[in-house]
């Protein structure tokens, strides 16, 4: 379990990192290393160069920014999971992330792992990508052609595949800030605390009188990417939980922890639990 030989560069600027990515096509960025180092040590990947971005300054902030509605929460790519877990801004303005955070791995992993790394890696069973999708957030990226912003709905492309180009670096994620009408729900089923979930569900909605609107349900662990359950969202907006469960059109594959049929059943159970959270919450 020793990685194949690789060169290592610690970069001082995003431009330097982008340039290096251009020069060495099989180079990989190194953020918290919590996903990357395992694949290296198991020789599942053997990049010739690791570009360490941990020294870049200004990429680890968590801030409330003005904007549409109650504004945005902007999280720098290098913010560690533990920062998000302890952030008062996130607790108040991105409560879905706050709910998910303690379920991401274990403390040692959260001390090193970064939010940018998690979104860039896009593990289909990971919590944060599903939260990004549920909250209709967006990511900022910087590449050889400059900066751009990608909506969550356009970002997740396939298994470990995102809209980021080979030379692009994710610099921040941005989430609409919660207000008094924001409703969130989160639940996952993992056999041991800290494991990737067998199935998980991140959800957001807006209170609409006694009902809900803008319901967004993002499942994880059931496909190649986090998946919206749009038909169920519509049913839930009408307060029809049974209908929402019946409308679930997920088709999860078997994996080592559960068969597709079990996952599908569990997705329905989670939907009921999350629906109750969305409906019961009061500010």
């Amino acid at each position, binding site marked *: 379990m020793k990685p194949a*030989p690789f060169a290592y560069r610690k970069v001082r600027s995003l431009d330097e990192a982008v340039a290096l990515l251009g020069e060495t096509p099989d180079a990989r960025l190194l953020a918290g290393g919590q996903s990357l180092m395992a694949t290296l040590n198991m020789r599942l990947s053997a990049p010739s160069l690791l570009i360490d971005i941990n020294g870049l300054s200004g990429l680890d902030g968590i801030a409330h920014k003005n904007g549409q509605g109650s504004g945005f929460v902007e999280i720098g790519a290098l913010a560690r999971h533990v920062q998000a877990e302890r952030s008062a801004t996130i607790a108040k303005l991105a409560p879905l992330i706050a709910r998910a955070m303690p379920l991401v791995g274990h403390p040692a992993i959260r001390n090193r792992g970064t939010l940018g790394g998690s979104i860039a890696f896009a593990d289909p069973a990971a919590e944060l990508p599903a939260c990004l999708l549920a909250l209709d957030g967006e990511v900022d990226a910087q590449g050889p052609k400059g900066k751009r912003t990608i909506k969550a709905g356009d970002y997740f492309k396939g298994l470990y595949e995102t809209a980021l180009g080979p030379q692009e670096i994710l610099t921040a994620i941005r989430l609409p800030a919660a207000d008094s009408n924001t409703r969130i729900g989160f639940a996952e089923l993992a056999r041991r605390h800290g494991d990737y979930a067998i199935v998980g569900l991140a959800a957001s909605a807006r209170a609409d009188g006694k009902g809900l609107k803008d319901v967004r349900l993002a499942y994880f662990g059931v496909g190649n990417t986090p998946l919206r359950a749009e038909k169920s969202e519509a049913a839930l907006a009408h307060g029809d939980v049974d209908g929402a469960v019946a409308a679930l059109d997920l088709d999860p594959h078997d994996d080592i922890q559960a068969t597709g049929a079990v996952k599908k059943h569990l997705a329905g159970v989670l939907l009921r639990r999350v629906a109750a959270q969305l409906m019961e919450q009061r500010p």
Partner: protein
Amino acid sequence: MKITADTPPVLSVLDRPNSYIGRAVPRPNLQRLTQGRGQYISDVTLPRMAHVAYLRSPHAHARIVSIATDAAKKAPGVVAVVTGAELAKVMTPWVGVLTHLKGIKSAPQAPIAVDRACWQGEAVCAVVARTRAQAEDACELIDIVYEELPAVTNPETALDPGTPVIHESLGDNLCFERKLDVGEVDKAFANSDAVVEATFVTGRHTGVCTEGRAVVADWNASEQRMTVYHATQAPHMMQNLFAKHLALSESQVRVLTKDVGGSFGIKVHTYADEMATVALSKLLKRPVKFVADRIESFVTDIHARDHRIKAKIGVTKDGVITAFEIDDLTGIGPYSVYPRTSGIEANQVINLTGGPYNCPNYRAQARVVFQNKNVMCQYRAVGHPIAVAVTEGLVELAAAKIGMDPLEIRRRNLFADDGYPAQTASGLKLEQLSHHEALAHLDAMINYAGLRAEQKALRDKGIYRGIGFASFIEVTNPSAAFYGVGGAKITSQDGATVKLDAQGAITIHSGVTEQGQGAEAVLAQCVASSFGVSMDRVRVVTGDTDNTPYGGGTWASRAAGIGGEAAWQAGKALRGNVLAVAGAMLQAKPEDLDIRNSIVVDKTTGAERLGLDELARVAYFRPDTLPPGFQAELMVTRHYVPRAWPFAFTNGIQASYLEVDTDTGFVKLLRHWCVEDCGTIINPQLVNEQIRGGVVQGIGAALFEQCLYDERGQMLNGNMADYLVPMAVEMPDIDCGHVVSPTADSELGAKGAGEAGTAGAPACIMNAINDALRPLNAQPLTDMPFTPGKILRALGKV
């Protein structure tokens, strides 16, 4: 006698004035280990030491057509690239059979596969380099052409005529078979009011040690001597095996264990890659280190427990068990593991099934078959968790069928506490057990009536909780009956040497080994007590074949019961010798003196007569002042082997209280209890830690752990993310209680306690889950581990 708190038992023959027997004293190695000053094999670094990495077969079964090593040999840092054929010239192959397992057969196994790889993970080529990383890099440059052969993976069809035979020379895929038919089984079933049949499956799993397997071998050509630093449980056994297969004498081999980071039976076997490492050192005339990483551990550390048991129990309507019948089938990989064999586990399943119960009618058959998966062999509580799951699963299913309380059916069938010596239907001889007292103790401890009331109240609210039990017996303190009689050079006796140093402190050298379980604490307690010094005056040395008495090491819960007794006796003998010196110095009768707290005292008054430091000074530096002809003997060795009984059986009962989420199939463990009788308790804290750790491993078997293979023999979850080791958050509080029935075979009276937790926990969890789901008419769950998917299926939800 019951012990509920950590207090010493009433004064007994063992209670000397400064007795440590029955007390929770800290381990002597605690500070060293907790301050990071332990020395594990991976800490050993020797001059000119090279590292070996093994290239392993990606196929479950394949002919090795060719191995091209040129590129690897030229890679940076590479010292040598060695194939199986080349290493076969240095080391002879071995065959894992024992003569007392009649008919057992296996094929010769080489340190590195020659011509054919028989499981995914078998080493097929070695690269020795300056660093492990360089060795791994060079492994990638080796080009092996394989011709894939059909893999035999399903034990159910392994003996079918159409299934390929893995080792042609053996004729078929049958490794071992045993049949037993005692009493009148058919008649007993015919006369039963109810007969319950079930098929139990115990999942293939492994003991995940904190420290992986590790070895540093150092062939010193100038001395013609091999020194092996080895993370092993049994240094003398390994000394014999290294010597035998390198054609050396045992005196040419020294095995040192250093600290061992957990073993659980994993580190008591001959591993091809460890043997190869030793052979490579001989070949290359330099130290070679091998440390198994996690990935290779999962495909090479022995697996265990992969059994399918069709089982049947008969009962009368008053709950009398009339008969047991089992048919066990197990697939053990392509080789029977050397030298303990892979037949013992199935043999133990036959021996132990029905073990707690006084039922004379028993029929059993076991078939052990070869397959192309990693090898299986003995892991903590060998065979017990399987036999207990079958027995206790059947007992609770039968109780449910006749509408009897699960504790009541046990009361009606457990061997009576006053009926010993007794013998099980399978022929196990039981000296003195305490099933009924243990059960009564447990009943009170868990507040059974209260728990049932709570369970009932919660069911009405749609909350499904279950209470499950498992009575068990455990094999400990094995005599030569276990291995010696079968021709294996595995000693059942053990020894201790105790020495008074020149300042009056004690050093113990013992043949048992420390694996992290606290054996050294127990040895120190025994000697401190029988000799008469405080614990801080005792140092313990274990794990060095050059410097310890010949002994068996640690396995089958023998370290305390056998090694402890030898140490106790050695301490006592040294006390006699020291008092002889004191008598000579004080012109007193030795029998009027005693040693208390490092001071020679007057036995009756306790008056201090002489410090041990002064005694040692005189004995070592001024022996001229002692009476003429008197020779002080301040180093004593004693050995002990159980003789009166083949095994010192222990007994106990466990209970589990858990909640099943019937929507998700998830199980939440609420509480676990174990009442156990290991005879004299030398150190209650260590006993309880053994019980708790064992229970956790048993919970792993019941709910989490399984080595998953596909039908082509590929292990699917050989990493710490996908193979679920039980972790702290999911574990319940585990309460321990004790009953004490000392064995009369030793003065100490201690039996073993290392495996009881593991033996009973899986059955207990299974029974609790089935108890929880009974009102929902779920199919009884008997196929471990009980994953959410299996529970949902039993509930008809998927």
